[in-house]
């Protein structure tokens, strides 16, 4: 019976293992967590950063597995950049631990950075250097790039122009090429497509997906929900320094969130719709827009008591779902 059984990562213990007693069940749990840990390229455990009494990040936890594109989302000031700076060892956590590529982010920062490509959320470059000088500087530290010519061509970048003459998009391209230059094992990108036109955004997505396909782990923060939906396999949502959700894109899509827009023929009582899981997102004397999480039936029953001019029920978009987290 055992010979036909295959253990896969992510499997949890279940009734089927009771046939041979609890010893077998424990073995499976150990195996499962070991495989998970083996696949973890980036792990953030109980990370906190305080500036005096001001909280920037407070006890966040998440892990990113090999080859995964992890989207890090949150409103401005939520703690995204602080988390990234801690990962890059630019700033030191007040508490908690970050490990990347099996190494400790502070003690082994040099070894980690040797395999990491980083793009800042606000790309700053040496104004008096050309793009070529930037590449030469990085190559003098990291070694010769095998893909530089291709990157320059794909991003339509002129490396002979001095950085001070580059547009904001040109500077972003330079930052991206510098991050991708050495085909890193780990990519940490803060708002990678800021200031890029849609064509170049697609080039960035292609590169990211191609890197991920070849085993690179990508951690990226973004405000662009469309790009998150397009390239990320999983997202973490941070708000006020705390992770409020960590789910796969599919899980998010599968959330039963409805948007109901009802126009009434006459007056309605708002209190009728103040139900559990229901939120009034727009209101006028004759209409209501409701966002419903979970069961839609109680709202439909209430609507049944009114004469309606119009009714529209739709599934929430991914953006609506994110907004529910942001506004929570």
């Amino acid at each position: 019976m055992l010979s036909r059984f295959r253990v896969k990562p992510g499997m949890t213990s279940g009734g089927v293992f009771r046939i041979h007693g609890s010893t077998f069940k424990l073995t499976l749990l150990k195996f499962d967590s070991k495989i998970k840990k083996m696949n973890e390229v980036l792990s953030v455990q109980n990370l906190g950063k305080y500036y005096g009494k001001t909280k920037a990040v407070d006890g966040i936890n998440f892990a990113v597995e090999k080859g995964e594109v992890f989207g890090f989302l949150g409103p401005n000031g939520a703690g995204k950049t602080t988390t990234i700076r801690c990962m890059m060892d630019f700033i030191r956590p007040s508490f908690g631990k970050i490990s990347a590529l099996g190494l400790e982010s502070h003690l082994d920062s040099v070894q980690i950075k040797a395999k990491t490509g980083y793009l800042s959320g606000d790309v700053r470059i040496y104004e008096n250097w050309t793009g070529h000088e930037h590449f030469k500087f990085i190559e003098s530290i990291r070694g010769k790039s095998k893909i530089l010519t291709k990157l320059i061509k794909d991003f339509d970048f002129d490396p002979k122009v001095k950085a001070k003459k580059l547009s904001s998009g040109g500077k972003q391209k330079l930052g991206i090429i510098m991050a991708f230059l050495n085909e890193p094992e780990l990519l940490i990108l803060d708002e990678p497509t800021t200031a890029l036109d849609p064509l170049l955004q697609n080039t960035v997505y292609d590169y990211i997906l191609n890197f991920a396909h070849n085993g690179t782990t990508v951690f990226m923060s973004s405000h662009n929900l469309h790009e998150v939906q397009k390239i990320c396999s999983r997202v973490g949502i941070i708000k006020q320094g705390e992770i409020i959700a960590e789910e796969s894109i599919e899980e998010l899509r599968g959330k039963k969130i409805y948007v109901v827009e009802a126009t009434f023929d006459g007056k309605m009582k708002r209190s009728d719709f103040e139900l559990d899981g229901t939120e009034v997102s727009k209101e006028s004397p004759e209409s209501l827009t409701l966002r419903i999480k979970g069961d839609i039936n109680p709202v439909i029953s209430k609507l049944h008591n009114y004469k309606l001019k119009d009714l529209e029920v739709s599934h929430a978009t991914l953006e609506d779902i994110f907004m529910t987290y942001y506004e929570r």
Partner: protein
Amino acid sequence: MFPIIIRTIKNKRIAIIAYIVSGIVFLLMYIPIYPSFESSGKQLVEVMKGYPQSFMKAFGIEDIAQAFLSLEGYLSTEHFSFVWPLVLIFLALSFAGNSIAGEIEKGTMEIVLSQPLSRLKIFFGKYLGGLLAVILFVITSIFAAIPIAAIFDVNYVAKGYFYIAILGLLFGIAIYSLAMLCSSFMSDKGKANFMTGGILIGMYVVKILSGLKSNLDDLKYLSFFYYFNASAALINYKIDSIAIWVFVLTTIITIVLGAFLFNKRDIAI
């Protein structure tokens, strides 16, 4: 570390050349007019003998006759006691301020920090890049006096220039290291330079005050400018051993402290 040193020098090559040229231009201004100055030197010595001794001391003139009757005495009074240290201080502050605090202010430090280099290597790479600039300036702006004097047929004694070069290097490196310390924990070039500049101005004032009143005489030991005795080095071939200790210890302490603080600090750009 070498890429950082090389980039630091390349970035500053125009500034380095400008400082070196200015050092040589000053010598070209002073040395050719020395013969005419020398001819009226005796009268000047007589005039200056009437000046209070403390006033002369405050401006680094200890032996009036020596100060005006040899090229080295003339240069130590006119050039190496005030103008030359001032140019050296500007160079040291500008290089140190830009290398850490300036890069953090501009945000370019992220490019360096994201590379596989330890903080200590970054600090010492930047330190050594600036140090080379200080050394280049000191050597060229001092030893250029010899060929310039030869070209304009002015008598000189080469030995003194070696002594002033050693003293100048110790003085320049100590000031540069102090400026690097201030730069290592600041995120704004202006504030870092203001802090180092403030310390140096304080030292200069202390030195002037110590020469004006006998009860303030001991204050001179707090000033780098007391230990930087250009005339003693250039004319008498003397460098006070205490001066060597002060400059060397300042350099060591400020480098170690600067490296420690840079290694420990948060760098949020």
